[in-house]
Protein backbone atom coordinates (compact mmCIF):
# COMPACT_ATOMS: atom_id res chain seq x y z
CA UNK A 1 0.00 0.00 0.00
CA UNK A 2 1.26 3.43 -0.86
CA UNK A 3 -1.41 5.51 0.76
CA UNK A 4 0.81 6.68 3.59
CA UNK A 5 3.82 7.61 1.50
CA UNK A 6 2.72 11.21 1.02
CA UNK A 7 2.37 12.15 4.70
CA UNK A 8 5.61 10.32 5.60
CA UNK A 9 7.73 12.11 3.05
CA UNK A 10 6.12 15.43 3.91
CA UNK A 11 7.46 15.02 7.42
CA UNK A 12 10.77 14.29 5.77
CA UNK A 13 12.36 12.30 8.59
CA UNK A 14 11.05 8.79 7.83
CA UNK A 15 11.69 6.47 4.91
CA UNK A 16 8.92 4.14 3.64
CA UNK A 17 8.98 0.83 5.55
CA UNK A 18 10.68 -2.15 3.96
CA UNK A 19 11.09 -5.88 4.69
CA UNK A 20 9.72 -7.05 7.99
CA UNK A 21 8.44 -3.59 8.87
CA UNK A 22 6.46 -3.43 5.63
CA UNK A 23 5.02 -6.90 6.22
CA UNK A 24 3.97 -5.92 9.72
CA UNK A 25 2.42 -2.72 8.43
CA UNK A 26 0.36 -4.60 5.84
CA UNK A 27 -0.71 -7.46 8.08
CA UNK A 28 -1.08 -6.00 11.54
CA UNK A 29 -4.80 -5.41 11.04
CA UNK A 30 -5.20 -9.13 10.48
CA UNK A 31 -2.95 -10.22 13.34
CA UNK A 32 -3.54 -7.88 16.22
CA UNK A 33 -7.34 -8.20 16.69
CA UNK A 34 -7.42 -12.03 16.97
CA UNK A 35 -4.52 -11.96 19.43
CA UNK A 36 -6.31 -9.37 21.52
CA UNK A 37 -9.60 -11.25 21.30
CA UNK A 38 -8.26 -14.68 22.16
CA UNK A 39 -5.83 -13.30 24.73
CA UNK A 40 -8.60 -11.33 26.40
CA UNK A 41 -10.81 -14.38 26.53
CA UNK A 42 -8.06 -16.55 28.03
CA UNK A 43 -7.21 -13.86 30.57
CA UNK A 44 -10.84 -13.53 31.64
CA UNK A 45 -11.15 -17.30 31.91
CA UNK A 46 -7.93 -17.61 33.92
CA UNK A 47 -8.92 -14.78 36.25
CA UNK A 48 -12.37 -16.20 36.96
CA UNK A 49 -10.77 -19.59 37.66
CA UNK A 50 -8.04 -18.13 39.88
CA UNK A 51 -10.54 -16.01 41.79
CA UNK A 52 -12.65 -19.11 42.38
CA UNK A 53 -15.68 -17.79 40.49
CA UNK A 54 -15.96 -21.13 38.71
CA UNK A 55 -14.83 -24.68 39.33
CA UNK A 56 -13.61 -24.93 35.75
CA UNK A 57 -9.82 -25.02 35.62
CA UNK A 58 -8.21 -22.05 33.89
CA UNK A 59 -6.10 -22.36 30.75
CA UNK A 60 -2.86 -22.23 32.74
CA UNK A 61 -3.83 -25.52 34.39
CA UNK A 62 -2.79 -27.26 31.17
CA UNK A 63 0.77 -26.46 32.25
CA UNK A 64 0.50 -26.37 36.03
CA UNK A 65 -1.24 -29.74 36.50
CA UNK A 66 1.49 -32.34 36.13
CA UNK A 67 -0.78 -35.03 34.67
CA UNK A 68 -2.23 -32.66 32.10
CA UNK A 69 1.17 -31.26 31.20
CA UNK A 70 2.34 -34.78 30.49
CA UNK A 71 -0.69 -35.38 28.22
CA UNK A 72 -0.07 -32.06 26.52
CA UNK A 73 3.57 -32.73 25.71
CA UNK A 74 3.41 -36.49 25.08
CA UNK A 75 0.45 -37.16 22.76
CA UNK A 76 1.93 -40.39 21.35
CA UNK A 77 2.44 -42.66 24.39
CA UNK A 78 0.64 -45.97 24.53
CA UNK A 79 0.57 -47.93 27.77
CA UNK A 80 -1.96 -50.37 26.38
CA UNK A 81 -5.72 -50.52 26.79
CA UNK A 82 -7.32 -47.15 27.22
CA UNK A 83 -4.22 -45.48 28.62
CA UNK A 84 -3.00 -43.68 25.53
CA UNK A 85 -1.78 -40.28 24.40
CA UNK A 86 -4.29 -37.81 23.03
CA UNK A 87 -3.04 -38.20 19.48
CA UNK A 88 -3.82 -41.91 19.57
CA UNK A 89 -7.24 -41.28 21.11
CA UNK A 90 -7.93 -38.75 18.37
CA UNK A 91 -6.81 -41.17 15.68
CA UNK A 92 -9.24 -43.79 16.97
CA UNK A 93 -12.02 -41.25 16.78
CA UNK A 94 -10.90 -40.07 13.35
CA UNK A 95 -10.82 -43.59 11.95
CA UNK A 96 -14.43 -44.06 13.08
CA UNK A 97 -15.35 -40.72 11.51
CA UNK A 98 -13.57 -41.74 8.31
CA UNK A 99 -15.55 -44.95 8.09
CA UNK A 100 -18.95 -43.45 8.90
CA UNK A 101 -18.34 -40.39 6.77
CA UNK A 102 -17.18 -42.38 3.76
CA UNK A 103 -20.29 -44.54 3.97
CA UNK A 104 -22.41 -41.40 4.28
CA UNK A 105 -20.69 -39.85 1.25
CA UNK A 106 -21.22 -42.93 -0.92
CA UNK A 107 -24.84 -43.50 0.08
CA UNK A 108 -25.61 -39.77 0.27
CA UNK A 109 -24.27 -38.90 -3.17
CA UNK A 110 -25.92 -41.93 -4.79
CA UNK A 111 -29.28 -41.31 -3.10
CA UNK A 112 -28.99 -37.57 -3.75
CA UNK A 113 -28.52 -38.16 -7.47
CA UNK A 114 -31.47 -40.55 -7.57
CA UNK A 115 -33.69 -38.09 -5.73
CA UNK A 116 -32.44 -35.16 -7.81
CA UNK A 117 -33.19 -36.91 -11.09
CA UNK A 118 -36.55 -38.38 -10.13
CA UNK A 119 -39.35 -36.06 -9.06
CA UNK A 120 -41.45 -38.93 -7.77
CA UNK A 121 -38.70 -40.21 -5.49
CA UNK A 122 -38.07 -36.65 -4.38
CA UNK A 123 -41.71 -36.14 -3.37
CA UNK A 124 -41.80 -39.53 -1.66
CA UNK A 125 -38.71 -39.12 0.47
CA UNK A 126 -38.04 -35.43 0.93
CA UNK A 127 -40.35 -35.05 3.97
CA UNK A 128 -38.65 -38.04 5.58
CA UNK A 129 -35.17 -36.63 4.93
CA UNK A 130 -36.15 -33.23 6.26
CA UNK A 131 -37.51 -34.88 9.39
CA UNK A 132 -34.60 -37.24 10.03
CA UNK A 133 -31.95 -34.57 9.59
CA UNK A 134 -33.42 -32.66 12.54
CA UNK A 135 -32.79 -35.56 14.93
CA UNK A 136 -29.81 -34.73 17.15
CA UNK A 137 -26.74 -37.02 17.34
CA UNK A 138 -27.44 -37.96 20.96
CA UNK A 139 -30.95 -39.09 20.09
CA UNK A 140 -29.54 -41.53 17.55
CA UNK A 141 -27.27 -43.21 20.11
CA UNK A 142 -29.89 -45.38 21.83
CA UNK A 143 -31.39 -46.31 18.48
CA UNK A 144 -27.95 -47.24 17.19
CA UNK A 145 -27.24 -49.34 20.28
CA UNK A 146 -30.51 -51.20 19.95
CA UNK A 147 -29.91 -51.74 16.25
CA UNK A 148 -26.35 -53.00 16.51
CA UNK A 149 -26.00 -54.22 20.13
CA UNK A 150 -22.35 -53.23 19.96
CA UNK A 151 -20.51 -49.95 20.60
CA UNK A 152 -18.23 -49.89 17.57
CA UNK A 153 -20.75 -50.30 14.75
CA UNK A 154 -23.25 -48.19 16.68
CA UNK A 155 -20.79 -45.29 16.84
CA UNK A 156 -20.13 -45.58 13.12
CA UNK A 157 -23.85 -45.67 12.43
CA UNK A 158 -24.33 -42.46 14.42
CA UNK A 159 -21.66 -40.74 12.31
CA UNK A 160 -23.26 -42.07 9.17
CA UNK A 161 -26.80 -41.05 9.98
CA UNK A 162 -25.77 -37.57 11.11
CA UNK A 163 -23.50 -36.73 8.20
CA UNK A 164 -25.54 -38.20 5.36
CA UNK A 165 -28.29 -35.54 5.20
CA UNK A 166 -26.33 -32.48 4.10
CA UNK A 167 -24.56 -34.61 1.47
CA UNK A 168 -27.81 -36.10 0.21
CA UNK A 169 -29.79 -32.87 0.22
CA UNK A 170 -27.04 -30.80 -1.42
CA UNK A 171 -26.33 -33.44 -4.06
CA UNK A 172 -30.03 -33.63 -4.92
CA UNK A 173 -30.17 -29.84 -5.18
CA UNK A 174 -27.06 -29.80 -7.35
CA UNK A 175 -28.63 -32.31 -9.71
CA UNK A 176 -31.89 -30.36 -9.82
CA UNK A 177 -29.91 -27.22 -10.61
CA UNK A 178 -28.28 -28.67 -13.73
CA UNK A 179 -29.24 -26.08 -16.36
CA UNK A 180 -31.96 -27.23 -18.75
CA UNK A 181 -29.60 -26.24 -21.58
CA UNK A 182 -27.11 -28.96 -20.56
CA UNK A 183 -29.87 -31.53 -20.39
CA UNK A 184 -31.07 -30.45 -23.81
CA UNK A 185 -27.58 -30.84 -25.24
CA UNK A 186 -27.45 -34.35 -23.82
CA UNK A 187 -30.87 -35.07 -25.36
CA UNK A 188 -29.98 -33.79 -28.83
CA UNK A 189 -26.70 -35.69 -28.82
CA UNK A 190 -28.58 -38.72 -27.47
CA UNK A 191 -25.86 -39.24 -24.88
CA UNK A 192 -25.82 -42.59 -23.13
CA UNK A 193 -26.77 -42.30 -19.47
CA UNK A 194 -23.21 -43.23 -18.48
CA UNK A 195 -21.79 -40.43 -20.55
CA UNK A 196 -24.39 -37.96 -19.24
CA UNK A 197 -23.47 -39.00 -15.72
CA UNK A 198 -19.70 -38.52 -16.04
CA UNK A 199 -19.57 -35.64 -18.51
CA UNK A 200 -22.53 -33.53 -17.47
CA UNK A 201 -24.19 -34.50 -14.21
CA UNK A 202 -21.20 -34.96 -11.91
CA UNK A 203 -19.19 -31.92 -13.09
CA UNK A 204 -22.30 -29.77 -13.01
CA UNK A 205 -23.33 -30.80 -9.51
CA UNK A 206 -19.81 -30.97 -8.08
CA UNK A 207 -19.92 -27.63 -6.34
CA UNK A 208 -23.11 -28.57 -4.49
CA UNK A 209 -21.78 -32.01 -3.62
CA UNK A 210 -18.70 -30.46 -2.05
CA UNK A 211 -20.77 -27.98 -0.10
CA UNK A 212 -22.62 -30.96 1.38
CA UNK A 213 -19.39 -32.82 2.06
CA UNK A 214 -17.94 -29.83 3.86
CA UNK A 215 -20.96 -29.28 6.10
CA UNK A 216 -21.04 -33.00 6.86
CA UNK A 217 -17.44 -33.38 7.93
CA UNK A 218 -18.10 -30.89 10.73
CA UNK A 219 -21.27 -32.71 11.76
CA UNK A 220 -19.53 -36.09 11.65
CA UNK A 221 -16.87 -34.83 14.03
CA UNK A 222 -19.49 -33.40 16.39
CA UNK A 223 -21.36 -36.69 16.33
CA UNK A 224 -18.38 -38.91 17.14
CA UNK A 225 -17.78 -37.03 20.36
CA UNK A 226 -21.40 -37.40 21.36
CA UNK A 227 -21.36 -41.09 20.46
CA UNK A 228 -18.16 -41.87 22.35
CA UNK A 229 -19.21 -40.03 25.46
CA UNK A 230 -22.35 -42.10 25.64
CA UNK A 231 -20.62 -45.34 24.63
CA UNK A 232 -17.48 -45.50 26.77
CA UNK A 233 -15.00 -48.34 26.87
CA UNK A 234 -13.33 -47.81 23.50
CA UNK A 235 -10.39 -45.49 22.91
CA UNK A 236 -11.34 -42.13 21.43
CA UNK A 237 -11.23 -38.47 22.26
CA UNK A 238 -14.85 -38.54 23.43
CA UNK A 239 -14.14 -41.40 25.76
CA UNK A 240 -11.03 -39.56 27.03
CA UNK A 241 -13.12 -36.54 28.04
CA UNK A 242 -15.76 -38.66 29.69
CA UNK A 243 -13.12 -40.62 31.56
CA UNK A 244 -11.46 -37.41 32.73
CA UNK A 245 -14.83 -36.16 33.96
CA UNK A 246 -15.46 -39.39 35.88
CA UNK A 247 -12.11 -38.91 37.61
CA UNK A 248 -12.64 -35.15 38.13
CA UNK A 249 -9.52 -34.30 36.08
CA UNK A 250 -10.93 -30.94 35.05
CA UNK A 251 -7.79 -29.68 33.33
CA UNK A 252 -7.72 -32.90 31.24
CA UNK A 253 -11.23 -32.10 30.03
CA UNK A 254 -10.04 -28.67 28.95
CA UNK A 255 -7.12 -30.22 27.06
CA UNK A 256 -9.44 -32.73 25.36
CA UNK A 257 -11.73 -29.93 24.25
CA UNK A 258 -8.78 -28.05 22.77
CA UNK A 259 -7.90 -31.16 20.75
CA UNK A 260 -11.48 -31.55 19.55
CA UNK A 261 -11.70 -27.95 18.43
CA UNK A 262 -8.33 -28.07 16.69
CA UNK A 263 -9.12 -31.29 14.81
CA UNK A 264 -12.55 -30.02 13.78
CA UNK A 265 -10.96 -26.85 12.46
CA UNK A 266 -8.32 -28.79 10.52
CA UNK A 267 -10.97 -31.07 8.98
CA UNK A 268 -13.03 -28.08 7.88
CA UNK A 269 -10.02 -26.29 6.38
CA UNK A 270 -9.02 -29.47 4.60
CA UNK A 271 -12.45 -29.77 2.98
CA UNK A 272 -12.45 -26.09 2.07
CA UNK A 273 -9.08 -26.55 0.41
CA UNK A 274 -10.27 -29.63 -1.49
CA UNK A 275 -13.40 -27.79 -2.56
CA UNK A 276 -11.29 -25.03 -4.07
CA UNK A 277 -8.90 -27.44 -5.72
CA UNK A 278 -11.56 -29.56 -7.35
CA UNK A 279 -14.10 -27.07 -8.63
CA UNK A 280 -12.30 -24.04 -10.00
CA UNK A 281 -13.78 -23.58 -13.50
CA UNK A 282 -17.26 -22.58 -12.36
Amino acid at each position, binding site marked *: MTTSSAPTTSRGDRTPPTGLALWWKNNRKLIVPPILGIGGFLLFWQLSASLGLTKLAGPLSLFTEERTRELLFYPFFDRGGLDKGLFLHSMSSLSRVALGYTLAAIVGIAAGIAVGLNKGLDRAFDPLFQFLRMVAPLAWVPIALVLFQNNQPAAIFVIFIISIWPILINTAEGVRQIPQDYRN*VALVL*QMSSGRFFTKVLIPSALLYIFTGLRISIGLAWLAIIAAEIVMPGTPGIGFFIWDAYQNSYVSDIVLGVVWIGAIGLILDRLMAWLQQRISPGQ
Partner: protein
Amino acid sequence: MSASVLHHPSASPASAGGGPLLRFEQLGKVYPTPAGPYPVLENISFTVNQGEFVCVIGHSGCGKSTLLNMVSGFAKPTSGQVLLNGRPIEKPGPDRMVVFQGYALLPWMTAYENVYLGVDSVKPKLPEHEKREIAMEHLEMVGLTAAAEKKITQISGGMKQRVAIARALAIRPEVLILDEPFGALDAITKEELQEELLSIWNTQKCTVLMITHDIDEALFLADRLVMMTNGPAAGIGEILSIDFIRPRSREDIMEDPRYYELRNQALDFLYNRFAHDEDEKA
Protein backbone atom coordinates in the same frame (compact mmCIF):
# COMPACT_ATOMS: atom_id res chain seq x y z
CA MET B 1 -17.99 -7.01 -57.60
CA SER B 2 -20.59 -4.94 -59.39
CA ALA B 3 -24.32 -5.21 -59.04
CA SER B 4 -24.65 -6.62 -62.54
CA VAL B 5 -23.00 -9.85 -61.44
CA LEU B 6 -26.02 -10.45 -59.29
CA HIS B 7 -28.22 -10.74 -62.33
CA HIS B 8 -25.90 -12.93 -64.32
CA PRO B 9 -28.21 -15.29 -66.21
CA SER B 10 -26.09 -18.39 -65.71
CA ALA B 11 -26.03 -18.01 -61.95
CA SER B 12 -28.32 -20.52 -60.35
CA PRO B 13 -31.10 -19.12 -58.22
CA ALA B 14 -30.20 -19.30 -54.57
CA SER B 15 -33.27 -21.19 -53.49
CA ALA B 16 -32.52 -24.15 -55.71
CA GLY B 17 -31.88 -26.94 -53.24
CA GLY B 18 -32.57 -30.65 -53.22
CA GLY B 19 -35.96 -32.18 -52.74
CA PRO B 20 -38.23 -31.56 -49.75
CA LEU B 21 -36.54 -32.46 -46.46
CA LEU B 22 -38.68 -31.00 -43.72
CA ARG B 23 -42.43 -30.76 -43.99
CA PHE B 24 -44.77 -28.97 -41.57
CA GLU B 25 -48.29 -30.32 -41.91
CA GLN B 26 -51.16 -28.38 -40.32
CA LEU B 27 -48.96 -27.95 -37.29
CA GLY B 28 -50.55 -26.55 -34.14
CA LYS B 29 -49.52 -26.20 -30.52
CA VAL B 30 -51.74 -25.47 -27.54
CA TYR B 31 -50.33 -24.88 -24.07
CA PRO B 32 -52.52 -25.57 -21.07
CA THR B 33 -52.60 -22.58 -18.71
CA PRO B 34 -54.53 -21.93 -15.51
CA ALA B 35 -56.78 -19.64 -17.57
CA GLY B 36 -57.56 -22.44 -20.00
CA PRO B 37 -55.84 -23.73 -23.12
CA TYR B 38 -53.69 -21.17 -24.92
CA PRO B 39 -53.11 -21.78 -28.63
CA VAL B 40 -49.59 -20.68 -29.54
CA LEU B 41 -49.39 -21.87 -33.13
CA GLU B 42 -52.11 -22.84 -35.54
CA ASN B 43 -52.22 -24.40 -38.93
CA ILE B 44 -48.58 -24.09 -39.93
CA SER B 45 -47.88 -25.73 -43.27
CA PHE B 46 -44.78 -25.35 -45.34
CA THR B 47 -41.87 -27.28 -46.71
CA VAL B 48 -38.14 -26.77 -46.37
CA ASN B 49 -35.98 -28.18 -49.12
CA GLN B 50 -32.72 -30.04 -48.70
CA GLY B 51 -29.88 -27.53 -48.44
CA GLU B 52 -32.13 -24.52 -47.99
CA PHE B 53 -31.44 -21.68 -45.55
CA VAL B 54 -34.69 -20.56 -43.95
CA CYS B 55 -35.07 -17.74 -41.46
CA VAL B 56 -38.10 -17.27 -39.23
CA ILE B 57 -38.99 -13.80 -38.03
CA GLY B 58 -41.83 -12.49 -35.90
CA HIS B 59 -42.53 -10.50 -32.79
CA SER B 60 -41.68 -11.96 -29.43
CA GLY B 61 -44.37 -14.30 -28.17
CA CYS B 62 -45.40 -15.40 -31.66
CA GLY B 63 -44.23 -18.95 -31.06
CA LYS B 64 -41.06 -18.98 -33.16
CA SER B 65 -39.17 -20.90 -30.51
CA THR B 66 -42.09 -23.28 -30.06
CA LEU B 67 -41.99 -23.91 -33.80
CA LEU B 68 -38.29 -24.73 -33.68
CA ASN B 69 -38.74 -26.86 -30.56
CA MET B 70 -41.11 -29.07 -32.47
CA VAL B 71 -38.47 -29.56 -35.15
CA SER B 72 -35.74 -30.28 -32.61
CA GLY B 73 -38.13 -32.59 -30.76
CA PHE B 74 -38.18 -30.77 -27.42
CA ALA B 75 -41.87 -29.99 -27.85
CA LYS B 76 -44.61 -32.19 -29.28
CA PRO B 77 -47.26 -30.79 -31.61
CA THR B 78 -50.83 -30.75 -30.32
CA SER B 79 -52.14 -31.15 -33.85
CA GLY B 80 -50.55 -31.90 -37.18
CA GLN B 81 -46.96 -33.04 -37.50
CA VAL B 82 -43.45 -32.25 -38.63
CA LEU B 83 -41.89 -34.76 -40.99
CA LEU B 84 -38.18 -35.18 -41.62
CA ASN B 85 -37.56 -37.24 -44.74
CA GLY B 86 -41.17 -38.36 -44.52
CA ARG B 87 -40.89 -39.60 -40.94
CA PRO B 88 -42.64 -37.77 -38.09
CA ILE B 89 -40.30 -36.18 -35.54
CA GLU B 90 -40.75 -37.73 -32.12
CA LYS B 91 -37.76 -36.85 -29.97
CA PRO B 92 -34.52 -34.86 -30.09
CA GLY B 93 -31.72 -36.36 -32.14
CA PRO B 94 -28.39 -35.46 -33.67
CA ASP B 95 -29.86 -35.25 -37.18
CA ARG B 96 -31.44 -31.98 -36.02
CA MET B 97 -28.67 -30.29 -34.07
CA VAL B 98 -29.46 -27.12 -32.18
CA VAL B 99 -27.28 -24.09 -31.58
CA PHE B 100 -28.84 -22.94 -28.35
CA GLN B 101 -29.58 -19.33 -27.53
CA GLY B 102 -27.34 -19.37 -24.45
CA TYR B 103 -24.68 -21.47 -26.26
CA ALA B 104 -25.20 -24.36 -23.81
CA LEU B 105 -21.52 -25.22 -23.72
CA LEU B 106 -20.16 -27.14 -20.76
CA PRO B 107 -18.08 -24.56 -18.88
CA TRP B 108 -15.76 -27.05 -17.17
CA MET B 109 -14.46 -28.20 -20.53
CA THR B 110 -12.27 -26.60 -23.17
CA ALA B 111 -13.57 -25.49 -26.55
CA TYR B 112 -12.06 -28.61 -28.10
CA GLU B 113 -13.54 -30.92 -25.46
CA ASN B 114 -17.00 -29.50 -26.05
CA VAL B 115 -16.81 -30.19 -29.78
CA TYR B 116 -15.20 -33.57 -29.21
CA LEU B 117 -17.92 -34.59 -26.73
CA GLY B 118 -20.51 -33.96 -29.45
CA VAL B 119 -18.66 -36.08 -32.02
CA ASP B 120 -17.90 -38.78 -29.49
CA SER B 121 -21.52 -38.97 -28.28
CA VAL B 122 -22.99 -39.20 -31.75
CA LYS B 123 -20.38 -41.43 -33.36
CA PRO B 124 -18.78 -43.36 -30.51
CA LYS B 125 -17.54 -46.11 -32.80
CA LEU B 126 -15.33 -43.93 -35.00
CA PRO B 127 -11.61 -44.42 -34.45
CA GLU B 128 -10.19 -42.06 -31.85
CA HIS B 129 -7.95 -40.14 -34.26
CA GLU B 130 -10.83 -39.52 -36.66
CA LYS B 131 -12.99 -38.09 -33.90
CA ARG B 132 -10.13 -35.80 -32.90
CA GLU B 133 -9.61 -34.72 -36.48
CA ILE B 134 -13.29 -33.94 -36.98
CA ALA B 135 -13.32 -31.82 -33.82
CA MET B 136 -10.19 -29.89 -34.77
CA GLU B 137 -11.33 -29.45 -38.35
CA HIS B 138 -14.57 -27.81 -37.27
CA LEU B 139 -12.86 -25.60 -34.74
CA GLU B 140 -10.60 -24.50 -37.56
CA MET B 141 -13.64 -23.79 -39.71
CA VAL B 142 -14.86 -21.24 -37.18
CA GLY B 143 -11.34 -19.85 -36.70
CA LEU B 144 -10.76 -21.21 -33.21
CA THR B 145 -7.68 -23.39 -33.65
CA ALA B 146 -5.64 -21.14 -31.39
CA ALA B 147 -8.28 -21.11 -28.65
CA ALA B 148 -9.04 -24.84 -28.80
CA GLU B 149 -7.47 -25.56 -25.41
CA LYS B 150 -9.11 -22.63 -23.64
CA LYS B 151 -11.82 -23.21 -21.07
CA ILE B 152 -15.25 -21.92 -22.04
CA THR B 153 -15.14 -19.57 -19.06
CA GLN B 154 -12.07 -17.89 -20.53
CA ILE B 155 -13.45 -16.99 -23.95
CA SER B 156 -15.70 -14.20 -25.22
CA GLY B 157 -19.36 -14.47 -26.22
CA GLY B 158 -18.50 -14.44 -29.91
CA MET B 159 -16.02 -17.26 -29.42
CA LYS B 160 -18.56 -19.24 -27.41
CA GLN B 161 -21.04 -18.94 -30.26
CA ARG B 162 -18.32 -20.15 -32.65
CA VAL B 163 -17.69 -23.19 -30.46
CA ALA B 164 -21.42 -23.89 -30.35
CA ILE B 165 -21.60 -23.71 -34.14
CA ALA B 166 -18.52 -25.92 -34.50
CA ARG B 167 -20.03 -28.47 -32.10
CA ALA B 168 -23.29 -28.45 -34.04
CA LEU B 169 -21.67 -28.82 -37.47
CA ALA B 170 -19.15 -31.43 -36.35
CA ILE B 171 -21.87 -34.03 -35.97
CA ARG B 172 -23.05 -33.37 -39.54
CA PRO B 173 -26.73 -32.77 -38.85
CA GLU B 174 -29.29 -32.86 -41.63
CA VAL B 175 -30.91 -29.76 -40.21
CA LEU B 176 -29.06 -27.10 -38.27
CA ILE B 177 -31.37 -25.21 -35.93
CA LEU B 178 -30.31 -21.81 -34.65
CA ASP B 179 -32.37 -19.87 -32.12
CA GLU B 180 -31.38 -16.22 -32.39
CA PRO B 181 -27.72 -17.16 -32.45
CA PHE B 182 -26.27 -13.68 -32.79
CA GLY B 183 -28.73 -11.70 -30.67
CA ALA B 184 -26.37 -11.19 -27.74
CA LEU B 185 -23.32 -10.19 -29.79
CA ASP B 186 -21.96 -6.78 -30.72
CA ALA B 187 -22.53 -5.55 -34.28
CA ILE B 188 -19.05 -6.33 -35.62
CA THR B 189 -18.82 -9.83 -34.15
CA LYS B 190 -22.33 -10.46 -35.39
CA GLU B 191 -21.44 -9.57 -39.00
CA GLU B 192 -18.27 -11.65 -38.85
CA LEU B 193 -20.18 -14.65 -37.59
CA GLN B 194 -22.93 -14.26 -40.17
CA GLU B 195 -20.31 -14.36 -42.88
CA GLU B 196 -18.60 -17.38 -41.34
CA LEU B 197 -21.88 -19.21 -40.97
CA LEU B 198 -22.70 -18.50 -44.58
CA SER B 199 -19.35 -19.68 -45.90
CA ILE B 200 -19.57 -22.88 -43.86
CA TRP B 201 -23.12 -23.45 -45.04
CA ASN B 202 -21.89 -22.96 -48.61
CA THR B 203 -19.35 -25.73 -48.22
CA GLN B 204 -21.41 -28.15 -46.08
CA LYS B 205 -24.77 -27.58 -47.70
CA CYS B 206 -26.75 -28.57 -44.66
CA THR B 207 -30.28 -27.30 -44.22
CA VAL B 208 -30.58 -24.35 -41.86
CA LEU B 209 -33.56 -23.21 -39.85
CA MET B 210 -32.85 -20.02 -37.96
CA ILE B 211 -34.85 -17.68 -35.76
CA THR B 212 -33.91 -14.04 -35.94
CA HIS B 213 -35.14 -10.61 -34.92
CA ASP B 214 -33.02 -8.88 -37.49
CA ILE B 215 -34.42 -8.30 -41.00
CA ASP B 216 -31.01 -7.43 -42.49
CA GLU B 217 -29.53 -10.60 -41.07
CA ALA B 218 -32.31 -12.65 -42.61
CA LEU B 219 -31.95 -10.93 -45.99
CA PHE B 220 -28.21 -11.54 -46.00
CA LEU B 221 -28.39 -15.19 -44.96
CA ALA B 222 -31.64 -16.79 -46.02
CA ASP B 223 -33.14 -18.25 -49.16
CA ARG B 224 -36.56 -17.72 -47.72
CA LEU B 225 -37.85 -15.63 -44.85
CA VAL B 226 -40.89 -16.95 -43.00
CA MET B 227 -42.78 -14.10 -41.35
CA MET B 228 -45.08 -15.10 -38.53
CA THR B 229 -48.30 -13.38 -37.52
CA ASN B 230 -48.81 -12.43 -33.88
CA GLY B 231 -50.00 -14.86 -31.24
CA PRO B 232 -52.18 -16.25 -29.88
CA ALA B 233 -52.72 -18.80 -32.60
CA ALA B 234 -49.87 -17.44 -34.68
CA GLY B 235 -49.37 -18.72 -38.16
CA ILE B 236 -47.30 -18.04 -41.23
CA GLY B 237 -48.23 -14.61 -42.54
CA GLU B 238 -46.05 -14.46 -45.58
CA ILE B 239 -42.94 -16.09 -47.00
CA LEU B 240 -40.39 -13.92 -48.79
CA SER B 241 -38.15 -15.51 -51.38
CA ILE B 242 -34.70 -13.96 -51.23
CA ASP B 243 -32.98 -15.01 -54.42
CA PHE B 244 -29.74 -13.04 -54.41
CA ILE B 245 -27.14 -15.25 -55.99
CA ARG B 246 -24.61 -17.03 -53.85
CA PRO B 247 -21.97 -16.65 -52.65
CA ARG B 248 -23.29 -13.37 -51.36
CA SER B 249 -21.43 -10.30 -50.30
CA ARG B 250 -22.96 -7.66 -48.11
CA GLU B 251 -21.93 -4.82 -50.41
CA ASP B 252 -23.46 -6.36 -53.51
CA ILE B 253 -26.74 -7.07 -51.78
CA MET B 254 -26.92 -3.54 -50.46
CA GLU B 255 -26.59 -2.20 -54.00
CA ASP B 256 -29.35 -4.40 -55.33
CA PRO B 257 -32.68 -2.52 -55.54
CA ARG B 258 -34.52 -5.73 -54.69
CA TYR B 259 -32.90 -5.59 -51.29
CA TYR B 260 -34.90 -2.50 -50.38
CA GLU B 261 -38.09 -3.89 -51.84
CA LEU B 262 -37.73 -6.99 -49.70
CA ARG B 263 -36.74 -4.99 -46.69
CA ASN B 264 -39.73 -2.69 -47.02
CA GLN B 265 -41.99 -5.63 -47.51
CA ALA B 266 -40.72 -7.20 -44.31
CA LEU B 267 -40.87 -3.94 -42.38
CA ASP B 268 -44.38 -3.30 -43.60
CA PHE B 269 -45.41 -6.77 -42.50
CA LEU B 270 -43.86 -6.49 -39.06
CA TYR B 271 -44.60 -2.90 -38.19
CA ASN B 272 -47.81 -2.06 -40.05
CA ARG B 273 -49.82 -5.13 -40.79
CA PHE B 274 -48.72 -7.15 -37.80
CA ALA B 275 -47.45 -4.52 -35.45
CA HIS B 276 -46.94 -5.82 -31.97
CA ASP B 277 -49.24 -4.39 -29.30
CA GLU B 278 -46.34 -3.35 -27.13
CA ASP B 279 -44.59 -1.78 -30.10
CA GLU B 280 -47.65 0.30 -30.85
CA LYS B 281 -47.82 1.59 -27.31
CA ALA B 282 -44.13 2.38 -27.23
